[in-house]
């Protein structure tokens, strides 16, 4: 799963995905090294799509199409060279884009002289170290990678980017184009209490993906609703059990954020929500319980390993050809199309299946937005405690710039955060099955624009979504407690959450 998802699990800031500076050197160097053009997008792509590896197309690296624009290099040099010798740090999850990262580092370091150190660790560790960093105000990291579920928790730890852009015109990147970020992301993701916590960095979002070959074989029509999904999953399971193929795959690991993601989508699809307008937990109301019961149904036609899998395991199921239809992260697409995948080219992406009528936003609490496309976007935030604020700021702008985002998407095939990227010719070019495919992007864009949901925005959410909720759900799904009774499980969660919310005076 994406880097971001991992982040979620941990709840604390995922530090900087900011990848190291891009180093742009001469054309020959680029060609020789073959790094040119790899950007943070690629990193993102790898992160988003599948932490199993970078399913992007590294053969594009070094080609003319992906060379960095000379004007950007110049800007880097002009602005960055006065910070020569500083080192900026951030930590990120172990994702494929590190391939790119390595070279990007040199590219950035060359014109600016700013060294970039990336600490690559599993998500759990990122969370752990970030927690430590913030609580202890260690200042080890200059940039934070913040998952949307942590925005409110860490809103106070970052520098507002838009204001900083205005405040330091001499460091401002030309043509940054703040309005280019998908409006939904800008409002729902980056903004908290009227200010931007960071710059939108990635946008993993739920879509529905199904195996065209299995659909053709069993003469099924493209799934549009949750009922279609459930029926199809059951049919595939019955028919293909013998071949080791299950209906669907889940990311239902107990105590992991991924289970929370699946669960929120299930209750939203049933017209429910996590919190009600009265700020009480509503996962145990009729709609919520229905959603959870349906999830239990889906678990019956999914590989048993689902309850031990997070997004990574779910992706592995898809790549290994173990499942027929999945309602999950669009970022799996580049992975399932990679050369090593057993199901290359076989998956068809469509907008996520729709369910019952959505609960209106004003009936949900804490800014929650129920919808059919669960989103796990993140921002890149500039740490207030950084000792190299300006150097990190330069890197951050470069990492989130138009060109970089577009180029990365081209290589990595994941959904860009900028609207302009979707129409970039280089990206449209790659809309065919193969590593780093972008063929799912129109579906993703449609989802982002129309069906994007948003989790609640409150300081305790990171804690709940990584502990209380998935631990109790896990107990239910693995038969450890509640005896299979969804309502009992949700009532237990409601008690704990309502008490915590009341104690915190929210």
């Amino acid at each position, binding site marked *: 799963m994406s880097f971001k998802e991992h982040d979620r699990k941990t709840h604390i800031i995922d530090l900087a995905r900011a990848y190291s500076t891009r180093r742009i050197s001469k054309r020959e160097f680029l060609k020789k090294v073959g790094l040119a053009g790899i950007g943070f997008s690629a990193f993102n792509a790898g992160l988003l799509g599948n932490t199993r590896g970078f399913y992007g197309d590294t053969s594009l690296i070094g080609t003319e199409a992906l060379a960095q624009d000379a004007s950007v290099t110049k800007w880097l040099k002009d602005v960055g060279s006065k910070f020569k010798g500083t080192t900026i740090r951030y930590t990120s999850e*172990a*994702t494929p*884009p*590190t391939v790119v990262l390595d070279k990007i580092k040199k590219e950035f370091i060359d014109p600016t002289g700013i060294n970039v150190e990336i600490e690559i660790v*599993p998500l759990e*560790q990122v969370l752990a170290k970030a927690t430590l960093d913030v609580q202890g105000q260690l200042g080890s990291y200059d940039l934070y990678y913040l998952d949307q579920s942590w925005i409110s928790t860490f809103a106070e730890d970052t520098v507002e980017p838009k204001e900083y852009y205005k405040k330091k015109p001499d460091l401002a990147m030309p043509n940054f184009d703040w309005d280019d970020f998908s409006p939904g992301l800008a409002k729902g993701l980056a903004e908290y209490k009227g200010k931007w916590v960071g710059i939108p960095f990635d946008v993993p979002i739920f879509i529905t993906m199904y195996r065209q070959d299995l659909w053709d074989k069993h003469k099924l029509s493209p799934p549009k609703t949750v009922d279609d999904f459930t029926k199809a999953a059951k049919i595939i399971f019955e028919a293909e059990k013998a071949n080791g193929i299950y209906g669907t795959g889940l990311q239902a690991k107990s105590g992991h954020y991924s289970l929370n993601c699946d669960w929120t989508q299930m209750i939203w699809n049933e017209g429910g929500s996590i919190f009600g307008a009265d700020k009480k937990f509503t996962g145990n109301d009729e709609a919520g319980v229905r959603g959870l019961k349906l999830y239990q149904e889906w678990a019956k036609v999914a590989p048993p390993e689902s309850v031990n899998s997070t997004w990574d395991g779910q992706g592995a199921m898809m790549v290994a050809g173990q499942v027929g239809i999945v309602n999950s992260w669009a970022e799996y697409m580049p992975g399932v199309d990679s050369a090593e995948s057993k199901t290359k080219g076989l998956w068809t992406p469509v907008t996520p299946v729709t369910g019952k009528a959505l609960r209106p936003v004003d009936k949900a609490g804490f800014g929650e937005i129920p919808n059919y496309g669960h989103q796990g976007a993140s921002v890149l935030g500039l740490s207030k405690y950084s000792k190299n604020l300006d150097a990190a700021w330069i890197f951050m702008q470069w990492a989130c710039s138009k060109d970089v985002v577009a180029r990365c998407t081209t290589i990595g095939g994941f959904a860009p955060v900028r609207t302009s990227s979707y129409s970039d010719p280089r990206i449209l070019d790659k809309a065919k099955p193969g590593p780093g495919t972008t063929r799912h992007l129109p579906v993703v864009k449609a989802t982002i624009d129309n069906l994007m949901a948003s989790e609640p925005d409150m300081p305790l959410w990171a804690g709940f979504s990584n502990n209380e909720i998935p631990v109790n759900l896990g107990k239910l799904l693995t038969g450890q407690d509640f005896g299979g009774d969804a309502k009992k499980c949700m009532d237990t969660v409601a008690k704990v959450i309502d008490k915590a919310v009341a104690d915190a005076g929210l």
Partner: protein
Amino acid sequence: MMQSRSSIFIRDTFAIAVVLLFMFPLFWWSLTSIKPDYAIFDKDGINWVNFEPTFDNYRVTVFGQSRLSEVEEKGFSVGNAGAGSYDSRQSLFDSIIIALGATLISVGVAVFASYALSRIPFRGRVSYLNWVLGQRFMPPVAIVVPLVLIYRDFGMRDVNNIFLGYLGLILIYALMNLPIVLLLMKSFFDDIPKDVDEAAMIDGATQWQAFWRIVLPMVKGGVAACAVLCFVFAWTEFLISLMLTTDIRTVPVKISTFVTSTGNEWGFISALGMAGVIPGFIFIILVQRHLVRGLTLGSLKE
């Protein structure tokens, strides 16, 4: 006691079977290290020999072959994460430095203390020994957070000063090894009769001289055993290294960075894991004789 040939045979078979059974996970692990990814995650079954072995995993982690260059050469996306992060030579180097440093300090400090505890009777000797043993009781998680905060205050974090970063980790490992080394060395010193010291001191030597010139050389073997145990412990420790350092990544931490949720890059994990076993194993074999004494903190001699 006379044993029949058949019972001997049964015993031998049984012994070999048990040892082989114990070795199975290591065997499987090394098999995994030469498997390409598709053979590790195959939904149709477990692959024992049904794959093309590859040494790429070792090449990338231990020999520093760039993942990207490999991808380019082969012309396709291997579906795995990037180059630089898998090159583990720096980690092997870091681990060696830390382990050696911790060993030197731990053994260096402990031989003096254990000699005194063995030779010089003083009030509170038993309490001191109990205090030392008590260090062993400490769960690492209790001191991790305080350590990080303390190190931050003293500027000893590796992000501030890499040298102090190494030193910080070395010192904490030295402390964690101290109980073993101290108690073990004490038992070795106890083996040498005090008469030896006294003879030397009658001839005019001070206690120090008796120690340095006479007794210490006699326990060289014991010192070696302590050194090995320290080394292995420092090499395999995980939690403290994980939380205390950012730039310095010891081998176990490095290996854990290859894992995400349900496992990523098992090929690299297993390759680096196997490579990491070798130094420790060699050392253990060398001091096998004294191993037991070490493991029981000196209570038990072989």
